[in-house]
């Protein structure tokens, strides 16, 4: 399994994980919200009846408040909801009424077996300052006032929440199972899914490699024959032009040959001083910048060392410099610094390009709108490939008219 295929499988399983998690979160979130809403409806009904549930006749020994007839007329409606006629028999709750001085006046706790009157009183005291919410995991409470009396009603929603918890546990187990099965399925059929992508990439590389090879001998012959013509008849504009065009083609062929050769497997890594590499390269080509009227600035930290393929890294730096030489209008800057364990190379220049990200600059045979005639669009493709082979990252963007290549290694 190659690296790209592993990446493909990881992304596939990640997508499945995210989709399932969102689905499970929505289902469980809605379920829990509805359970909370039902509980709130019940506590509201109790609050509307001043601390007791159902008709006053159903609360012998309870608080002797007059039931709200308007609300009471709806009581008992609906077979399944909180206003079901059976709710009167199954609702587990207690209400504690507190006078203005904080003393408990009345306690209704005979509708619940798990809580004694004393426990209800203590518990309600803790909730007096609140308004509503969950307490002790499965109990929903509401605090309300009426004619100077503060009521605290707590209802037990344990049984009502149990299905929600079961759905949550089943969701989690289901998601884990789907991920495990999904991973095995991807292992089994991933090859088939990935094969067309790999094939397309292989064909592209083969095409480039073959085209590259097929150009090589004819170019040598053209250049040789031009040399012979010059010897016979003397050099003229046509022969010089042919030499120039052949040189351009040679460069293109050379770049084409480099694209696709470097990958992680055939890196010949060794410890190199990137600082020296960049300084040397800039020193060698500084005159070219002067000739083109480009102000060159370098801010290269001393002794930044990395483990890299020396030849590839040297070529990469050359490509960055060539890029700046081709596209800078008046200024170019090269920076190298080390932040913690990360090495950062910044190559920037002023350019006639609108602001924004320019990731397409790294695509093979892609040129930006400021490209000049003859640009093959391969230099930055090589940069990206080499950076990738060194497990780094390369980005391109324009900000305030400054084109910046940012490489982290």
């Amino acid at each position, binding site marked *: 399994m190659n690296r790209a295929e592993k990446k493909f499988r990881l992304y596939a399983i990640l997508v499945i994980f995210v989709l399932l998690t969102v689905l499970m979160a929505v289902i469980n979130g809605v379920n829990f919200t509805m359970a909370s809403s039902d509980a709130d409806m019940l506590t509201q009904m109790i609050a509307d009846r001043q601390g007791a549930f159902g008709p006053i006749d159903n609360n012998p020994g309870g608080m002797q408040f007059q039931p709200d007839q308007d609300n009471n007329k709806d009581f008992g409606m609906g077979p399944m909801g909180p206003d079901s006629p059976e709710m009167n028999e199954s609702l587990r709750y207690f209400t504690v009424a507190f006078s203005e001085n904080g003393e408990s006046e009345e306690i209704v706790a005979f509708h619940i077996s798990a809580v004694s009157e004393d426990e209800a009183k203590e518990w309600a005291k803790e909730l007096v300052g609140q308004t509503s919410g969950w307490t002790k995991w499965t109990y929903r409470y509401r605090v309300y006032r009426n004619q100077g009396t503060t009521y605290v009603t707590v209802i037990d929603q344990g049984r009502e929440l149990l299905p929600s918890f079961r759905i949550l546990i089943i969701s989690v187990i289901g998601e884990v199972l789907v991920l495990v099965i999904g991973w095995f399925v991807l292992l089994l059929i991933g090859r088939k899914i990935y094969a067309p992508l790999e094939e397309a990439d292989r064909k592209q590389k083969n095409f480039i490699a073959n085209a590259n090879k097929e150009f*090589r001998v004819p*170019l040598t012959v053209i250049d040789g024959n031009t040399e012979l013509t010059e010897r016979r008849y003397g050099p003229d504009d046509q022969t010089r032009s042919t030499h120039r065009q052949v040189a351009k083609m040679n460069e293109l062929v050379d770049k084409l040959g480099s694209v696709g050769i470097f990958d992680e497997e055939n890196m010949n890594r060794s410890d190199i001083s990137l600082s020296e590499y960049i300084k040397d390269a800039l020193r060698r080509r500084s005159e070219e910048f002067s000739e083109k009227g480009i102000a060159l600035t370098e801010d290269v930290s001393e002794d930044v060392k990395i483990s890299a393929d020396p030849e590839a890294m040297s070529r990469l730096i050359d490509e960055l410099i060539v890029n700046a030489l081709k596209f800078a209008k008046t200024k170019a800057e090269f920076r190298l610094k080390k932040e913690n364990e990360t090495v950062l190379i910044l190559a920037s220049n002023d350019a006639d390009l609108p602001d924004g990200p320019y990731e397409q600059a790294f695509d093979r045979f892609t040129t930006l709108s400021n490209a000049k005639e003859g640009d093959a669009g391969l230099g930055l493709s090589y940069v990206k490939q080499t950076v990738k082979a060194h497990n780094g990252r390369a980005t391109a963007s324009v900000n305030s008219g400054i084109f910046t290549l940012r490489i982290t290694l």
Partner: protein
Amino acid sequence: MKILFAAPDRDLLECYRKLLEEDLGETVTSFDGTQVISLLSTDDFDVLILDKKLPRVDYRKIIERADNRMIPVIVLTDEPERASLLTDEKLKFEHLSYPFTFDRVKDAICKTLAEAGQRKEKA
């Protein structure tokens, strides 16, 4: 100086035969591996310029034959420089990757002959 230039492309052979003869000396060309083996057995050459893709005979066999006759070899390849570096022949023989200029061929010949001379002196 006598040069044997072996490559499958006839235009290349013709062009380089003329250039090499003008600058360096007699040049024999061949586009057939069997013929090269035969030429190496019968004639004396100062240097062999050999394309890796010469048909009919594997280029390594030709190199072996040239090595036996103490003839230095320059190997021509259509692989990029980097790929050439990955092959072990680089350790023993001069490589030239297409496309190249005539000046590079001349430089390679001079370098190869100088190295061969040094080896002979040491021997």
